[in-house]
């Protein structure tokens, strides 16, 4: 065994590791980073992609048309166990309505704990999520297709299509469920329930998958019918389970890529002795050295972000990638683990139906009272259990996740639904150290914050990370182009990397822009239009691969960057031209989320056009003048490794 030993200095072996762990799955990692970064604003993206909702008016919480919302709920779901009203906020100006059917009779009591309104995650879809957890607990006992639950669950599990999905206003939907183990889901999928002819509402505006089933203008109470769209959820799903394959495969591929990323990051840090100095070093116009400087700067600038996002990404996949922890502690019974987690959450009394009707108390007064209790913090959602009954209970939940370390608990207040009297609210348990760490990792990865500033910082760090990966991939190529420029023909491996670089960096930008264009160009009533938005993304991406093969590298870079830049920069115009609220209007009416999308598209488009211009103007110098001691240059070990490997 020792015959094959090749002892090398530590930095040399680490730089080899850095190069190859980064390159092997670098293109996939770039796509994951870019789509993941966009996912910080997936609610805003989804809202942009439903121009029908843009005319929603921005109103103060006390002026919301609660009466109209309640009248609609009473008409649509008179027998519901729970109604949920999602209030408008900075991330979504509309009012969302959803409801939950009474528990089915065939469900065994105790299949899962009954709780009036779960406090485990987000606003808006709590009903759906509660239901979902219960479905899973009861999945094996339940007759398939026994009730309306079936169609809804099936709809929920059809995540890849994700067509009707419309996230709650804060985006913290299903903080835990999204990436939770698939076993229980599989049980449900194994007994596919009959599709119900189903209420038409489920086809529109949200419905089905966790989102509200009805979307209203909060001021007038008028129903808004958003087009079917995958929305920001397509990019979000893609970033952790890819597309067009079994979800478990997609997750494994992304999980393994994440492990590569982790190794590349830490070995990169070990390679860089002079990490602080490199951060202030940028020498433009020097070919590979400039790319290395750029790679170093973008890496070091947000290194804590990269480490946290990578590690938390792995931990989010923990149940899948480290199953032995659950097996040894719970003998493989994952539901027991969940139950133990759940048992720690505060339990409220479940109201029992009295059978007597009574009118609901004034919601606006409750919202005002809650806001006062919380020192002005806005209310995120209102859950009304047993609506219309004398024993109705109203629970108000705060918007956003106020605590980083206690993320699963959102402050909530409970009121008697008829008298408006305050009910006892179970205290939020203090998390232990491990739970606090887990919660912080989770919330940081997902950007669940009540205020926009941290989300913007995460977004910018994500942009920096995307640049880090892109520049790292280019360093590999540029280093070799320099060495082989004298040769008649580059080795096929170099050509492969070059094509992959072009199509997976510039081409991905084209594909994302085309995805947004498709959203506006496919008619709103087109059948399966949401699927076509996704197909447009992949068709455009495939075309960029063909283009990258067919064209000379420089021309391919310029054309694809220019194409992506042009398409992005024109997004505000196509938004205005196809029924969306134009930029002056969105700024004027204070719809920051819409103006933010348009302005970001402009900025990204301008950046890509500038990059195209720079590449076009670029004339590679015949030979780089070496200056100073090559061994002390930043990235010297990288190059050594690259040259050695080549």
């Amino acid at each position: 065994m020792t015959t094959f030993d090749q002892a090398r200095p530590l930095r040399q072996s680490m730089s080899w590791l850095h190069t190859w762990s980064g390159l092997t799955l670098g293109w996939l990692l770039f796509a994951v980073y870019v789509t993941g970064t966009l996912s910080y604003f997936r609610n805003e993206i989804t809202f942009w992609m439903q121009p029908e909702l843009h005319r929603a008016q921005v109103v103060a919480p006390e002026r919301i048309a609660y009466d109209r919302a309640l009248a609609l709920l009473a008409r649509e779901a008179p027998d519901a166990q729970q109604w949920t009203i999602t209030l408008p906020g900075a991330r979504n100006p509309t009012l969302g309505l959803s409801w939950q059917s009474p528990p089915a009779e065939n469900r065994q009591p105790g299949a899962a704990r009954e709780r009036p309104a779960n406090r485990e995650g987000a606003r808006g879809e709590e009903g759906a999520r509660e239901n979902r957890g219960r479905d899973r607990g009861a999945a094996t006992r339940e007759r398939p297709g026994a009730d309306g639950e079936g169609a809804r669950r099936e709809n929920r599990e059809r995540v890849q299509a994700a067509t009707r999905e419309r996230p709650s206003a804060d985006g913290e939907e299903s903080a835990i469920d999204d990436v939770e183990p698939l076993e229980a889901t599989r049980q449900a999928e194994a007994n596919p329930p009959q599709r119900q002819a189903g209420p038409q509402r489920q086809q529109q505006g949200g419905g089905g998958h966790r989102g509200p089933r009805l979307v209203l203008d909060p001021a007038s109470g008028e129903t808004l019918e958003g087009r079917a769209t995958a929305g920001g959820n397509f990019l979000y799903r893609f970033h952790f389970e890819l597309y067009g394959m079994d979800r478990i495969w997609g997750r494994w591929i992304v999980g393994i890529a994440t492990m590569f990323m982790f190794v590349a990051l830490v070995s990169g840090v070990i390679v860089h002795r002079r990490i602080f100095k490199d951060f202030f070093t940028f020498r433009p116009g020097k070919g590979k050295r400039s790319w290395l400087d750029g790679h170093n700067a973008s890496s070091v600038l947000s290194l804590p972000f990269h480490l946290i996002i990578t590690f938390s990404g792995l931990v989010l996949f923990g149940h899948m990638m480290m199953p032995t922890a659950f097996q040894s502690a719970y003998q493989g019974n994952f539901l027991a683990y969940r139950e133990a987690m759940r048992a720690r959450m505060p339990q409220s009394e479940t109201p029992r139906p009295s059978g007597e009707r009574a009118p609901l108390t004034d919601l606006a007064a409750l919202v005002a009272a809650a806001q006062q209790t919380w020192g002005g913090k806005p209310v995120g959602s209102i859950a009304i259990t047993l609506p219309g009954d004398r024993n109705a209970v109203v629970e108000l939940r705060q918007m956003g996740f106020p605590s980083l370390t206690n993320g699963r608990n959102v402050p909530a207040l409970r009121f008697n639904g008829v008298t408006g009297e305050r009910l006892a609210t179970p205290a939020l348990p203090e998390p232990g150290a491990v739970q606090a760490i887990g919660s912080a990792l989770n919330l940081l990865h997902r950007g669940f914050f009540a205020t926009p500033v941290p989300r913007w910082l995460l977004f910018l760090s994500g942009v920096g990370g995307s640049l880090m990966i892109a520049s790292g991939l280019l360093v590999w190529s540029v280093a070799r182009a320099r060495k082989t420029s004298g040769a008649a023909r580059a080795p096929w491996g170099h050509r492969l990397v070059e094509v992959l670089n072009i199509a997976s960096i510039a081409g991905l930008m084209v594909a994302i822009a085309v995805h947004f264009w498709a959203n506006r160009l496919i008619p709103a009533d087109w059948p399966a239009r949401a699927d076509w938005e996704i197909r447009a993304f992949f068709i455009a991406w495939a075309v960029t691969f063909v283009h990258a093969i067919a064209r000379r590298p420089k021309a391919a870079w310029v054309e694809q960057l220019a194409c992506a830049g042009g398409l992005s920069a024109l997004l505000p115009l196509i938004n205005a031209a196809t029924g969306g609220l134009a930029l002056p209007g969105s700024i004027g009416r204070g719809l920051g989320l819409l103006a933010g999308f348009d302005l970001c598209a402009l900025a990204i488009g301008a950046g890509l056009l500038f990059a195209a211009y720079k590449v076009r103007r670029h004339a590679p110098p015949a030979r780089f003048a070496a200056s100073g001691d090559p061994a002390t240059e930043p990235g010297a070990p990288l190059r050594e490794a690259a040259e050695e490997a080549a």
Partner: protein
Amino acid sequence: MKTQGWLVSNPTVRHRIDVGLRTGLAAFGGYGLALLGAAALAAGLPFDFKPDAVSLAVMLGFLLHLTAVLWAFAAATLLRAALGLAVPAAFFGLWLLSLHYR
């Protein structure tokens, strides 16, 4: 052993085999160590609230894998690389066994 002589004398082939073995150690050995470590830690960490032990075991499992990968490539010889994985694996294995027969 003519073949072996060729393998040892040809530096390119020798390097490739070295790298291939280290990669295998890092990927499979490292992951195996992580799975074993996560199992032992989840069952053995003394937390009152069992899910805490599980969460921490998962986190430490990924860190174990990372460390194992770095070690597999950093160790001066292949033997040391392998021993560096085998010793902690034996430790976690014994811990798990002791928990089982307690």
